[in-house]
């Protein structure tokens, strides 16, 4: 048992904290206030850093951000701490700005899918040379207007036509979708069904490159928070892509990791990452509370008598406890993945706790700071707006409760739904 970060993890933490503090915080307010504008300078800096990092280090930068780490570490034989370090880095970046973190040019969730399910050729084509040239984005398009969590409802169709797939449908909630398709030479991994009557097994994912005729970014959503991040609505109208752009087999297989289950398993890697991001936002708010109190000469006494504690002290301690609970659950989920252990339950526990805790923590921070908390002059109110999405995406709190419940009860999705 050990609760100290390794030296290298500490070093990564510091490095990413420096990025967060020096490159993200200074522009955080601006790209929240002016939604749908592009922090080009930040993108360039991150892009150059990623390139440099990629060239100099064994572990690719994009892998460290969770894109490809998951499948790799699942296969890993000897314990690494890739996933844990990923969580730590993402906590730091999200401490800087959660919306900007989600906007960093990289292969993103789309890249993770290619890394996990792609053929060597696909990986080579879409990942190997990703960092060549100008900043690019990869994205993932799952959700459609008529469904949210119930992803077996995918209605976007993929029909084979000779050497091509023809995709038709509408996708929403596609993070970085506009940047991937319209603002860079990126790609989006689109979920579509080969046969609506065959349910989950017929759902496949397809790589759709920027510039594909028939693909339109209809709209970029106005959001409550994480406004620096683009959330696109994408229409595919008889969009033709090469036959080779399907991820995995074109066969409709009912069971196993090659099928829908495999797709769902990527959540085991992405949920702790979202949890870590949530924790970063919560910590930003808590740090600001501590700082403000310190400026007023108030230190939190962790061993004060509970009877004499002010409401303020008690609240701050409870906020910290919630955040630390979420962090340890998240680290455990990462640690298990690093050891090659299946972590669906733990990943959902972490995500569920982190989403709920950080929503509460940031709401409390606004309350505790009163007129300062509610003012857009400071970032606390922004963090409250940023936090809430973490209680929703990559599975709502309720979806994650469901997964935890099924796991502890030993129930199938037919038994508990």
């Amino acid at each position, binding site marked *: 048992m050990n609760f100290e970060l390794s030296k290298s993890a500490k070093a990564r933490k510091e490095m990413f904290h420096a990025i967060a503090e020096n490159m993200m915080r200074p522009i955080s307010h601006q790209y929240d*206030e002016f939604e749908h504008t592009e922090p080009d300078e930040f993108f360039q800096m991150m892009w150059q850093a990623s390139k440099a990092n990629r060239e100099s280090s064994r572990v690719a930068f994009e892998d460290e951000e969770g894109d490809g780490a998951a499948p790799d570490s699942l296969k890993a034989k000897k314990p690494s701490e890739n996933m844990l370090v990923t969580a730590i880095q993402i906590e730091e970046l999200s401490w800087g700005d959660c919306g900007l973190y989600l906007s960093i040019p990289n292969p993103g969730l789309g890249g993770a899918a290619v890394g996990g399910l792609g053929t060597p050729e696909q990986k080579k084509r879409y990942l190997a040379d990703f960092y060549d040239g100008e900043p690019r984005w990869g994205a993932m398009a799952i*959700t459609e207007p008529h469904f949210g969590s119930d992803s077996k409802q995918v209605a976007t169709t993929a029909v084979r036509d000779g050497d091509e797939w023809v995709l038709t449908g509408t996708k929403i*909630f596609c993070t970085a979708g506009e940047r991937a398709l319209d603002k860079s030479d990126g790609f989006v991994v689109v979920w579509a069904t080969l046969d609506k009557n065959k349910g989950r097994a017929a759902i496949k994912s397809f790589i759709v490159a920027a510039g594909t005729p028939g693909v339109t970014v209809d709209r970029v959503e106005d959001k409550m*928070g994480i406004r620096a991040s683009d959330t696109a609505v994408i229409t595919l109208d008889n969009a033709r892509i090469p036959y080779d752009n399907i991820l995995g087999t074109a066969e409709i297989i009912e069971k196993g990791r090659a099928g829908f289950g495999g797709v769902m398993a990527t959540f085991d890697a992405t949920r702790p990452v979202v949890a870590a991001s949530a924790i970063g936002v919560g910590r930003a708010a808590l740090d600001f509370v501590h700082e403000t109190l310190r400026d007023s000469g108030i230190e939190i006494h962790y061993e004060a008598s509970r009877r004499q504690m002010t409401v303020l002290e008690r609240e701050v301690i409870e906020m910290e406890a919630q955040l630390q609970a979420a962090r340890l659950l998240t680290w455990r989920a990462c640690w298990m993945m690093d050891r090659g252990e299946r972590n669906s339950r733990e990943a959902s526990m972490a995500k569920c706790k982190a989403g709920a805790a950080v929503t509460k923590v940031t709401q409390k921070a606004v309350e505790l700071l*009163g007129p300062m908390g509610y003012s857009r002059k400071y970032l606390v*109110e922004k963090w409250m*707006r940023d936090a809430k999405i973490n209680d*929703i995406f990559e599975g709502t709190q309720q979806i994650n409760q*469901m997964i935890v419940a099924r796991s502890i009860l030993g129930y199938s999705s037919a038994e508990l739904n």
Partner: protein
Amino acid sequence: MIDFELDEEQQLIKETVTAFAADVVRPAAHDADETGVIPEGLVAQAWELGIIQNSIPEEYGGYGSTPSTVTGTIVAEGLAEGDLGIALHLLSARLVVDAVMHAGSDEQKKEVLPLYCTDKFVSGSAAVLEPQWNFSLSELQTSAKRDGNDYVISGTKCYVPLAKTSPYMVVFARGEEEPIEAFLLKAGTPGVEIGEREGLMGIKACETYPVAINDVRVPASAKLPGSARGLLRRSRVAQSAMAVGVAKASLDYAIEYAKEREAFGVKIAQKQAIAFMLADMAIDVDAARLLNWEAAWSVEHNEDPSREITLARSYTDNAVMTVTDNGVQVLGGHGFIREHPVEMWARNGRGFSVFEGMASV
């Protein structure tokens, strides 16, 4: 005898306000939040309802209904259910009118009240909050010192609504005799500096400003002779009623959405996790409303209504945050998109414990 029924006049007012909120205010809410501008036509239309004029005695040109805190909460809840920011704008006149009616001298009443009885909207303003994280009503930093026949007021205020356009502003300050005193300042009083419009998380439709009060000298007659504490109590109750309106808006929207939206083959409202969340929200809204009614009733009937008000605020400040947060949760990802109003209600809902000023009176 315990009775939860509105009287006929209250019922009529409720219906009128609720209809106006649904038909006129709600449709304007999204754009007002985004742009910070409330359509003038809406404001004029609201003025025609006569809410303010109604509460002013006939001798000052009003319609002369008995001003009632209970009626006030019904109006506040109803309008805020339409939109909080717009409601705050429309009801801003109350900040001055209620202050003068309940705590003003005869001269002040004669000077001020007729102004609010014309057929054109007139706003009002009040400077209460101060820009410290630990702002507390019971320890105002803004001070009022007696100097001969004058008072000299100094301090910095924030969240002052409609400061730029209101003919009067009621300023709350720490006095020498009382911990809280209220002064009626005319627009343009020298030394009152109104800053740039503030940017807040919510209530974006309603203009608010920081106001610096630099050794402002006013005659003794500018002081409201009545109880400033009493005024703040009334405004705490009115705010609380608005919180109920916001929560109610979110609850109803979430119910409708949950009954429309399908997942896993059924409407999401048919899932216990969602349905029971909605039930808890409904209970919170009803409980908060009843507590607020009791608080409003107590302001009029009890010598010291502080317990009732504090219980209502304590419950409602928590409830409005929980309910509006759950409103977003029920809509899931769609709740996070500004196309739906639930995220705005969560932003607005968070404000109440802030306006409460980390404090009571």
